[in-house]
């Protein structure tokens, strides 16, 4: 997904001379083609995320569209004030390409796990937050990213993720995609939790439970209309996210239903990370399993909630 995303940056740079690339200290050879063809629009600035985001703001104030890339934790935590003030207060079209959203970097430990990035970024005015579920959806997103007026935080998955998005659904920022029609149950997901929800839905169908999947590739602005409409005849909404429960997609869904005062309100069950730092390494899959976020855990949660409703 990362390679796809960066290839798209080069494609966009060929189409539009406003596009610039700013990396911090990425691996050798990153966007070598773009560096060779557009050396004046390609920057590798070093391990200096505060500066990198401020510099991108300066470029954007002059009419450029910077695509900034580094690891998600450093691109959210380290330069938070620059994101809030330089990008969001000025409402600048800077794109933050965040490698390793969630627990992609599980083997590297808590310093590299972007577990609260959605929460801290979605609460900032003017910020847009997206988490495509696979490389093909990333490609569709990137093509519409160019002319979006606001800053965008782009949460990348690991790469090699099963392709479940469909070309016919297209990609419109802020518009949710129904990948499976809602039934008694509706999964509301973002990023690669969508694949897990689809798998859980398939398993649940075998036991007679129809569970739909509403894919929120855009967390902010949330597609409120699609969420409320999809949940009209649903008994149980299960949110699943590769993120702490506090402040993420599940919180947002709760807020939305509360504010909409839509009756009857479905039961809402949230699945995400606990209020704890990871205490083990392993892999993204193993950590998701430990934190009860694999498809088996989603199936179990639905059965449990329906049994107690």
């Amino acid at each position, binding site marked *: 997904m990362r390679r796809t995303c960066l290839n798209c940056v080069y494609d966009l740079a060929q189409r539009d001379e406003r596009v610039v690339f700013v990396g911090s200290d990425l691996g050798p050879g990153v966007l070598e083609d773009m560096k060779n063809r557009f050396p004046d629009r390609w920057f590798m600035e*070093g391990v200096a995320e*505060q500066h990198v985001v401020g510099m991108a703001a300066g470029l954007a104030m002059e009419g450029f569209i910077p695509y900034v890339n580094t690891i998600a934790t450093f691109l959210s935590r380290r330069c938070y004030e620059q994101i809030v003030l330089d990008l969001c207060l000025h409402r600048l079209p800077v794109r933050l390409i965040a490698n390793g959203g969630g627990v992609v970097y599980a083997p590297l430990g808590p310093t590299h796990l972007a577990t609260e990035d959605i929460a801290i970024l979605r609460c900032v005015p003017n910020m847009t937050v997206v988490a495509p579920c696979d490389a093909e959806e990333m490609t569709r997103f990137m093509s519409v990213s160019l002319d979006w007026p606001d800053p965008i935080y782009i949460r990348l998955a690991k790469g090699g993720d099963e392709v479940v998005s469909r070309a016919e659904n297209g990609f419109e920022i802020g518009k949710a995609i129904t990948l499976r029609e809602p039934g008694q149950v509706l999964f509301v997901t973002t990023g690669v939790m969508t694949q897990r929800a689809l798998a859980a839905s398939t398993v649940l169908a075998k036991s007679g439970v129809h569970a739909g999947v509403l894919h929120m590739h855009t967390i902010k602005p949330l597609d409120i209309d699609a969420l409320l409409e999809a949940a009209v005849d649903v008994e149980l909404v299960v949110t699943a996210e590769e993120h702490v429960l506090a402040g993420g997609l599940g919180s947002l869904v709760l807020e939305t239903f509360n504010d909409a005062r839509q009756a009857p309100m479905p039961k809402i069950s949230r699945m995400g990370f606990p209020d704890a730092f990871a205490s083990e390494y392993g892999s993204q899959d193993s950590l998701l399993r430990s934190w009860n976020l694999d498809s088996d855990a989603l199936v179990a949660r639905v059965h449990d909630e329906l049994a107690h409703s």
Partner: protein
Amino acid sequence: METQHSDPSIMLDSRSRELRGLIVRALIGGNRGHLGSSMSLVEILRVLFDSYLQYKPHEPKWPDRDRFILSKGHGCLALYALLADKGFFSHEALDEFCHSSGILGGHPEANKIPGVEASTGALGHGLPIGVGMALAGRIRQQQYRVAVVTGDGEINEGSNWEAAMSAANNKLDSLSVFVDYNKLQSYGSTKEVCDLEPLAEKWRSFGFSVREVDGHNVKALKSCIKALPFEPNKPNVVICHTVKGKGFDFAEGQAIWHHKSRFSSEDIERMHAALDRN
């Protein structure tokens, strides 16, 4: 090397007094403000706006203008005085400093005030933004220059030094940093809180071409700025030795006058008296 200081015998001329009068007008209008932090800046900004920067007050976004960023946003009253003086907005706007109906806040905001390029106030943001603007000018082969004014306490922030490394690495000789070195930050002296010395050596070692100047000596400032860029392919820094609260004897060198959120009638009398005396 011993730290330089501004010559205390420098007399303020009528223009410097007039600009300080505009600042006092805003201070009284808002009944608050960073007096000390603004007064140390007056001559630096005066020389920049009178003798260096290219701009059009009635076309603030003129593409070929020089870019000016007041990174020490808390010194905004000095910038407001210059912008009002140059006609970016009316003098009456100063009376509404920090009012809910006014455009001039306690820190400058780009989307509200003509002539303000970047919203600042949180420290350490102006230089990275200035680097981006200078790079943008290079990409587009525009001839504009970028001037960033920082405080001395402000450069405690590491982001300045991240940006400084980048400015040198990118050989941005169109970028100039002006450090308002009044030797006082909020708590007390810069030497006591977090000593900046050897400051010129620091900037030099970061790849800048460095000059030091008395930040209240208009002639010396003009002569220094006229020599920009100091060296090809190197960013510039002018360390301006200043006095916090310059021109207001009761406030000069007094950390307590960094910021005041209410003025007594005696404070206001003292401000007026100082303006008359100068």
